[in-house]
């Protein structure tokens, strides 16, 4: 088989062993890699109902047939596991040299189960893997630990690691690489910490095992050229995703004060032009010629890598209008190994709970010093409040009781990322149906939505969300490469199918790929149902705030979502996906997609609709 290695590195930390195992060829062809492969492995090898922070959970690092190849922005991998934040399927992608090295080492994925007795790290050198002690790294922040590892394994080694937040099982701890790249929002860093795995170091020197290497090189260089020639290229290189601050403000979707508003009076203090004034350099993921990691000097003189999501969530959403200070909070999150989006949602939750008298402490909107301290308290679970917030907003609200669930801006337990949806039903649907909880990665429909009929709840919105979920969440997360060349600079999608054929020799058609994407989505939904032991469509509803509390500022003041119309939109979505009115895939859908192996389990748990 070309294009894949057909092998997993299977690591059991309880037993202290690592071995190379083959996996079925059919999985590669029909689930491809990254998210698809990870979901298939979890279904097969993780015991149903496993404790996300227990030894039975599987932590998976997966690449795909396009990862690491000489084509735009291909240095990404997917990290997946059962999520300790949501209790369902969790994953994220991360740009790292580790992606390229993993492919060169000859594996399509690393699967880690068990729990080491003492802090450990996994070191992979081509086909040789060792589990080594890492007590000297435990407790270090991600930057310090990575620098130590680079001294030992070389500047170019692939390194994935956790910080103190992952070690302390903060439920939104992420995996970090290269001092600022972060992935696995739904607590993938906590899963790694629960296994006492501080770091994974990979050095691969083998080849990619491609069907037609010359064709890949030819297509890849044409794609690089098209990226560079695109209209938006020079501005993208100036601001990257930071241009979205102005854009979101203009369109009244910039989250402010815990998503109470969609405009922020201080937006000029945190926008892309302000970033340009503070910018010192630019960083990116491997193989990328449109690097978007804008590195600024923060208010404490240190370097911090910014993008739109972290700036909106740690800026406008907590009422902070000074980008140099936002950059401090962002840097701390990266060093501790915390997801900036959930962190921003959690800090905003705390500020609102404080305002409403649900917690005793005073936390004022925009109070940089207090938020700065609070990040440490959360990451280290230092104080009672820090410990509460380290559980994420849904659990924190359950513990606080009263009305506090109103302030927990989340879906399925994952905090909403940085687009306010009071006047964006399509984007609300994207959050509601994202396969990991409220994340924009799968269907960033808002741009299309504001350009078409923003206030409509018509079925075209459900259709568009599914189209985007297929390409972004289904395909890019399984290829595994960065979606930005396509979504930001309009690189022709046909490149990807041609590259895939050249890499694998499999004559995939778009129909095949869409079916593959639908298969991955239905399998992820099946995993959720299996792990939660049931399903209810309320799990696919956006936060109540967007229905109940209209925004009060800006040109769209008074806007809010209509719950009845939204339910209709969700019905249309289920119908198009071939899922029943509960949000459970129909038996016929599962069978058509080749997921017959899930039928018995799901039927037993929820009774499948034909």
């Amino acid at each position, binding site marked *: 088989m070309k294009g894949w290695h057909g092998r997993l590195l299977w690591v059991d930390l309880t037993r202290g062993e690592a071995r190379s195992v083959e996996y079925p060829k059919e999985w590669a062809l029909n689930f491809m890699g990254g998210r698809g492969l990870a979901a298939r492995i979890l279904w097969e090898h993780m015991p149903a109902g496993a404790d996300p922070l227990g030894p039975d959970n599987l932590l998976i690092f997966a690449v795909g047939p396009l990862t690491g190849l000489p084509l735009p922005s291909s240095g990404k991998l997917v990290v997946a596991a059962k999520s300790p934040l949501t209790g369902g399927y969790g994953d994220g992608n991360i740009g790292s040299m580790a992606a390229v090295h993993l492919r060169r080492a000859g594996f399509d994925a690393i699967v880690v189960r068990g729990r080491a007795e003492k802090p450990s790290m996994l070191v992979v050198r081509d086909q040789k893997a060792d589990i080594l002690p890492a007590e000297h790294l435990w407790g270090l922040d991600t930057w310090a630990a990575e620098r130590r590892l680079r001294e030992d394994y070389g500047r170019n080694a692939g390194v994935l690691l956790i910080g103190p937040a992952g070690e302390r099982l903060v439920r939104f701890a992420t995996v970090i690489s290269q001092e600022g790249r972060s992935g696995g929002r739904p607590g993938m860093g906590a899963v790694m910490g629960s296994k006492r795995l501080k770091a994974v170091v990979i050095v691969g020197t083998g080849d990619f095992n491609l069907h037609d290497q010359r064709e890949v090189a030819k297509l890849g260089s044409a794609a690089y050229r098209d990226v560079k020639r695109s209209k938006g290229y020079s501005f*993208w290189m100036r601001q990257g995703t930071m241009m979205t601050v102005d854009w979101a403000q203009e369109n009244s979707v910039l989250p402010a004060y815990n998503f109470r508003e969609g405009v922020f009076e201080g937006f000029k203090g945190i926008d892309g032009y302000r970033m340009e004034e503070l910018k010192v350099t630019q960083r990116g993921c491997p193989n990328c010629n449109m690097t978007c990691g804008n590195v600024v000097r923060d208010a404490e003189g240190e370097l911090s890598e910014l993008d739109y999501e972290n700036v909106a969530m740690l800026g406008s959403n907590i009422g902070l209008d000074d980008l140099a200070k936002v950059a401090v909070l962002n840097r701390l999150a990266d060093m501790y190994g915390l997801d900036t989006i959930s962190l921003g949602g959690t800090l905003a939750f705390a500020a609102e709970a404080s305002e409403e008298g649900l917690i005793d402490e005073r936390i004022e909107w925009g109070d940089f010093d207090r938020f700065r301290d609070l990040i440490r308290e959360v990451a280290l679970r230092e104080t009672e409040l820090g410990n509460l917030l380290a559980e994420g907003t849904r659990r924190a609200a359950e513990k606080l009781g009263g009305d506090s669930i109103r302030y927990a801006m989340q879906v399925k337990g994952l905090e909403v990322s940085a687009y306010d949806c009071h006047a964006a039903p399509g984007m609300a649907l994207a959050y509601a149906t994202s396969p990991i909880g409220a994340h924009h990665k799968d269907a960033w429909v808002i*741009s299309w939505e504001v350009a078409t009929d923003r206030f409509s709840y018509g079925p075209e919105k459900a259709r568009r969300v599914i189209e985007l979920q297929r390409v972004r969440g289904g395909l890019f997360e399984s290829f595994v490469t960065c979606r930005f060349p396509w979504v930001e600079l309009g690189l022709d999608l046909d490149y990807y199918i041609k590259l895939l054929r050249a890499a694998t020799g499999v004559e995939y058609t778009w*129909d095949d790929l869409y079916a593959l994407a639908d298969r991955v989505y239905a399998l992820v939904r099946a995993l959720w149902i299996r792990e939660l032991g049931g399903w209810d469509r309320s799990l696919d509803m956006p936060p109540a705030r967007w229905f109940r509390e209209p925004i009060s500022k800006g040109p*769209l003041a008074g806007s809010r979502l209509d719950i009845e119309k939204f339910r209709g939109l969700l019905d249309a979505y289920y119908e198009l996906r071939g899922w029943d009115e509960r949000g459970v895939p129909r038996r016929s859908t599962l069978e058509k997609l080749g997921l017959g192996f899930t039928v018995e389990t799901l039927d037993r748990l929820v009774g499948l609709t034909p």
Partner: protein
Amino acid sequence: MGRVRVRYLGYLAEYAGGREVEVEVGESGARLIEVVRLPPDVSPDDLVFLVNGRPAKPGDRVRPGDTVSVMPHISGGAPAPSYIPVAAPARATA
């Protein structure tokens, strides 16, 4: 006579020569598309227009005192290959 303020976002500002430009229009106003300055190879279909912060179309009328915003699609705007029915048959293994 009066002025319409036009705000350009993203790379459009580089082309228009500024982030904010004022344009003279008659009392009866003008069509939105007449007051914006776009790169020749950019189709209005690929852009988002607002008037006073509310969604607008290129053919809409703008009047003195209005603010027009024009911006590229950000993220996820490019079209995907044509739509196919959901739940297509499983792929026979190659």
